[in-house]
């Protein structure tokens, strides 16, 4: 790692960020920082504050409280210094479907002060880099969802942003296209040291980030690298379904002395040795247990442990 001056300033530095829409508090004191070249994901349910955070970081709206610095500039007063170096990927496409892929890129370049031959060379190179070279002259509306997403990324990369802020970038993509998109992002980070900050509600997407912040009700309830977060859950996660979960919960506590939580009608237990525990449970309560599963913890289990609910609760 070289230690130039820019390396020492975090790319994004957020301190005690608050944001309210009238009386409703969407962000209630969020603090984190992202260093250069990092891929940082925000995981959380809808309404957790992700969209508000995205809007603030993308310079669409100023925060109502706290401080946000990007490249060392305060977003409240100096967003004009941040914008030329920032690339924003929206949840809804910002490509004009009536225009061709290349036309979209050229318009975007003009907005960032690029023009003429330099812009066209840059646009062609970016399309080639993302494997869209042969689709340049096609109207955007004729592209598949996955290709449109890649074209969207190509457009944002035209002005060589140092920081990408993305709101649910894999929305509407099938798993194959999602994986594909993820590979493109990693290559970008490796080749150009671009910092990437994204929001997601997909566990798999979050687990591929270098670090994850878990947002719940406007607060960061967890922050760290995905493996460390999963390590905070004790061993394996055993999920038991039964006809009368409340009753079984009491009995299991008496018998095993372990912490049992009921989420969406199923019993969740963290256990260091899942497969043995499964056998013990089935032996101890014959006929009561309908099904048992166990597995390595996911970020969803981390979320459940921290908030007592699933990412996608029926009541959410």
């Amino acid at each position, binding site marked *: 790692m070289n230690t130039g001056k820019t390396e020492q300033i975090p790319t994004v530095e957020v301190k005690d960020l608050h944001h309210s829409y009238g009386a409703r508090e969407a962000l209630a004191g969020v603090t984190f920082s992202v260093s250069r070249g990092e891929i940082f994901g925000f995981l959380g349910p809808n309404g957790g504050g992700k969209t508000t955070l995205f809007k603030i970081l993308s310079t669409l709206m100023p925060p109502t409280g706290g401080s946000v610095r990007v490249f060392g500039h305060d977003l409240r007063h100096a967003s004009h210094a941040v914008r030329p170096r920032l690339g*924003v990927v929206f949840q*809804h496409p910002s*490509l004009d479907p*009536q225009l061709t892929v290349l036309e979209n890129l050229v318009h975007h370049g*003009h*907005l960032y002060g690029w023009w003429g031959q330099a812009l066209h060379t840059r646009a062609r190179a970016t399309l080639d880099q993302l494997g869209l070279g042969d689709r340049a002259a096609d109207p955007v509306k004729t592209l598949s969802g996955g290709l449109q997403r890649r074209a969207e990324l190509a457009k944002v990369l035209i002005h060589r942003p140092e920081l990408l802020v993305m709101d649910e970038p894999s929305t509407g993509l099938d798993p194959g296209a999602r994986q594909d998109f993820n590979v493109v992002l990693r290559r970008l980070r490796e080749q150009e040291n671009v910092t990437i900050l994204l929001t997601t509600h997909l566990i798999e997407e979050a687990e591929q980030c270098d670090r994850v912040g878990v947002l719940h009700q406007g607060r960061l309830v967890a922050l760290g690298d995905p493996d460390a977060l999963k390590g905070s859950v004790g061993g394996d996660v055993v999920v038991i379904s039964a006809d009368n979960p409340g009753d079984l919960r009491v009995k299991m506590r008496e018998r095993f002395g372990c912490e049992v939580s009921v989420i969406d009608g199923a019993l969740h237990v963290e256990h260091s040795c899942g497969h043995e525990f499964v056998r013990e449970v089935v032996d101890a309560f014959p006929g009561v247990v309908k099904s048992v599963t166990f597995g390595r913890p996911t970020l969803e289990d981390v979320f459940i442990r921290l908030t007592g609910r699933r990412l996608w609760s029926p009541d959410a």
Partner: protein
Amino acid sequence: MHKRTPLQIALPVVTLWWREMVRFCRQRSRLVGAFLQPLLFWILLGAGFSASFRPPGTVEGTGYMEYFYPGIIILVLLFTAIFATISTVEDRREGFLQAVLVAPVTRSSIVLGQTLGGATLALLQGGLFLLLAPATGIPLTITSVAAALGVMFVISFGLTSLGLIIAWRMESIQGFHAIMNLILIPIWLLSGAFFPAAGLPEWLQWVMKLDPLTYGVAAFRRCLYFGNASVVGEVPSLFLSLVLTVLFTAVAFIAATASARRSAA
């Protein structure tokens, strides 16, 4: 703020203007909406009212087809302005404009690109309508056509700005339609485009005097009949009309810029 070079100011404006041109050429239905619909109105209403139209304040021998002709061109401008602004609502929430809003571009550049785009399209379509003038008996000269095109541009610029003031505040297309029917169409109806003010109840005459588009329509009529002032009928003077029209356009543009600045996303 940053110091911007002229190129940095002009480039976003030109690119947004050009995008409007290209989009228009690729959406044929817009041409139908903004040109054929007024043409149909003109023919049907013009023919329909021709028997009963004998108001005071028009020159003897002016048929309704002729009276309504400048008015229908203003309607073409209005429709084109509305079409140009209507996409703004969706565009800025889930479309191309989202990205423009986070680009290093001032909101006034965005609004200027949009209004220039709308005004250019309106001018092209209104200009096409001017070709029908000989059919109405209005004698066109090079001077009157040039003057009429100039006034048309100023009016369309103002009307597009007016549409944008609303569009930048709207959350949904439905809301825009409601406001459009409540504000933009009445502004046209009461501008002297559809019926002359002379002989109307006093309150209605006052409403028409307060309608800014009245002066746009008057300026346009006077330019069309340039050198033939005696057959225009009773409308405000050219000087007053021009001054008020330019003023209205300037105020509407400034208000549209302010509306875009206040809009968070």
